[in-house]
């Protein structure tokens, strides 16, 4: 609970005594490259496998000839958009981006780079953390779109190559009873997860004390804490947003 209070204060400190808009704009762009572009390939790779596996698994489990084949791609679509893309990507994002945020800030703390900023009169929390959170909010939804697309395309290719489902059926299933609320839902999730991962990881790194060992501990804590937060939020959002 004390930690939670400190976290809230930390969030507050990132939006006071801020640098100019121009500086923040430049910092956000730099972070976008670090956070977003450098994760695209990994996200696309992982999601392609998810799409491919889901397609094969669903087909394998559908033994009844009475169920039309296009249900396969319908299942792949629902799984991808609702859970796999936003949530599994969250775990990858926490592992790759969250850990590097915590490690980077932790190193800056123990090597006194944060003190150096403060001596120059810069609010280090705002200067270092605010751009990371904004860049995550911008890039994470983009990564989720990439993930969704990769997953669906991989499903299409695998279904086609293995002969599990014809392209026509696959496309039909993808469009069958499509409720675009699931896209909205996925985007809401994306923003929440992006915020949780970037802010929790930054928080863990920013308050590192000690040496290299503690930076390692902070990095691990950043990943585990943000993954737990994401999964809890996933459940809460499902409760909140799905009861319509």
């Amino acid at each position: 609970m004390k930690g939670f209070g400190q976290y809230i204060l930390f969030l507050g400190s990132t939006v006071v005594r801020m640098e100019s808009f121009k500086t923040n704009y430049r910092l956000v762009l730099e972070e976008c490259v670090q956070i977003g572009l450098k994760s695209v390939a990994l996200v696309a790779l992982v999601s392609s496998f998810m799409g491919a596996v889901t397609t094969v698994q669903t087909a394998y489990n559908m033994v009844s000839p009475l169920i039309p084949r296009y249900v396969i791609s319908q299942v792949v679509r629902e799984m991808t958009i609702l859970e796999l893309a936003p949530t599994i990507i969250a775990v990858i994002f926490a592992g790759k981006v969250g850990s590097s945020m915590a490690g980077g800030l932790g190193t800056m703390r123990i090597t006194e780079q944060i003190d150096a900023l403060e001596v120059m009169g810069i609010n280090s929390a705002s200067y270092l953390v605010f751009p990371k959170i904004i860049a995550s909010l911008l890039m994470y939804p983009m990564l989720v779109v990439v993930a969704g697309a990769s997953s669906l395309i991989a499903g299409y290719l695998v279904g086609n190559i293995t002969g599990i489902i014809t392209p026509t059926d696959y496309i039909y299933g993808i469009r069958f009873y499509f409720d675009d609320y699931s896209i909205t839902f996925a985007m809401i999730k994306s923003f929440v997860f992006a915020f949780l991962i970037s802010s929790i990881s930054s928080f863990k790194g920013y308050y590192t004390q000690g040496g290299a060992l503690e930076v390692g501990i902070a990095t691990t804590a950043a990943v585990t804490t943000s993954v737990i937060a994401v999964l809890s939020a996933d459940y809460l959002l499902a409760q909140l947003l799905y009861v319509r």
Partner: protein
Amino acid sequence: MLKVNNISKSFGGRTVIEDISGEFDKGKTNLIIGSSGTGKSVLLKCIVGLITPDEGNVYYDLRNFTDADKEMKAEIRREIGMLFQGGALFDSKNVEQNVMFPLEILAKMSPDEKLDRVNFCLKRVGLENVNKKMPSEISGGMKKRVGIARAIVNNPNYLFCDEPNSGLDPQTSIVIDDLIGEITHEFDITTIVVTHDMNSVMGIGEKIMFLFKGRKLWEGSSADITHSNVTELDDFVFSNKVMQGLRKRT
């Protein structure tokens, strides 16, 4: 001139520095000395405002920094340069960008003027043709030099150095010490150096404050340090082999 009045600071009920007062002169290298864990760094951080003291005030040429409003704090900060233990260079920036950083934040200059100033400072600390190197590509001594260049780039009136010799070999230590001393005299800066290295004390110490377990036990010049009649200071001074030899001879 910089003055501290009755500074105290405790962490979680444990007093780390207690009731320290003293003056640090302009154009001199003022030293804060004492063994590890006596609160030297905490005192320095109170002086530069990284830690708010529980009690007491810090005066920068009669301007009360501790109670200053936002504008006054910002004004004083523009006059401060600080060299940290490991250099504290920003990992993601190259040497030139590191040295230029305070100018980007604090100074109103054209890009050309900034670059000229950066190159002047790098040259002053003996570094040329390393502008594009990253901190991870240069040695510990060079990092300290870059740290000094960054600390003086904004023409500070006050320079603070925390253990400038830590992690350096004895020869490089002397070079860095001398550099700090020269710069202090050349630009008439009020310099405070925190150290536990007796070589620095004898080499560049002009005005020395000795801390022991968070209290100021002695103050004076390097000429007087060997006959202070303060037991704790003698223990500190003569824990060094060279100094022991010196005592035997005198």
